[in-house]
């Protein structure tokens, strides 16, 4: 995926079994460690 001129080789999203939490894992070109974002559901 591409944001601005920045390309993320992968950005995976997964949702917990209870649907209350989402986890995103992004691997950015040239950056060795992935960025992991965890989100809690605030509203449906």
């Amino acid at each position, binding site marked *: 995926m591409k*944001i*601005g*001129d*920045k*390309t993320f080789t992968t950005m995976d*999203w997964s*949702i917990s079994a209870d*649907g209350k*939490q*989402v986890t*995103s894992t*992004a691997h*950015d*070109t*040239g*950056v*060795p*460690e*992935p*960025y*992991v*974002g*965890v*989100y*809690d*559901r*605030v*509203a*449906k």
Partner: protein
Amino acid sequence: MTSLHLALALGTSVGALLLTPQGDDSYTGTWKLNVAKSKFTGQRDKVAAAGANAWTFSYGTSSWTVKTDGSDTPTPFGNTVALQAESPTTWRFSWKAPNGQALATETWTLSADGKSMSRVSSGTRESGERFSDTTQMNASRELKDSPAPGRPPSSRSQHPLSSLPARPPRVWISRCPLRTSRSHARTTESQMPPTALASPPVRRLHARSVASQFNSL
């Protein structure tokens, strides 16, 4: 620059995140970043001298060169940044949208030993929400000629962050965990990533990218 950028870029900075994958509405809704469980560490940025009063910032495969004369300079992210040296150890960045609208400011302050720095960013998101983030960065081992611990930065250089030798290029790595401070009331919070940004920092706030990318000095 700061967590500012990346944070915005990834949407980690916050907010209401709406996701609607094909054929599945499980992701639909409003989501808030859980800073404690997220990981944006390991962000690396490089800063290298690029001539008189000019510095090149690199983050991943992106790089841009800015002079410390306060002039607005285009970045790979579609916005502009102006850099001013407020003191030998303090740099101030001002990010603007292509239309000239102020997006964020970020201040980098170098430690006395030149081995770490803090990046404090603040601004307004597209939604009108105010934010303020603080990110701590450590110099990597690639920084070989920094002043000895406890020793004040060299006064030879007239560049900001002069305590940082011009060579070799410096590589900075965000500490874990990133520290985020909030100085404004808001319903969501950002992380910088960087950050961001990295984040961003600021790339294009509209793209949620910001300065987390400040990758670094």
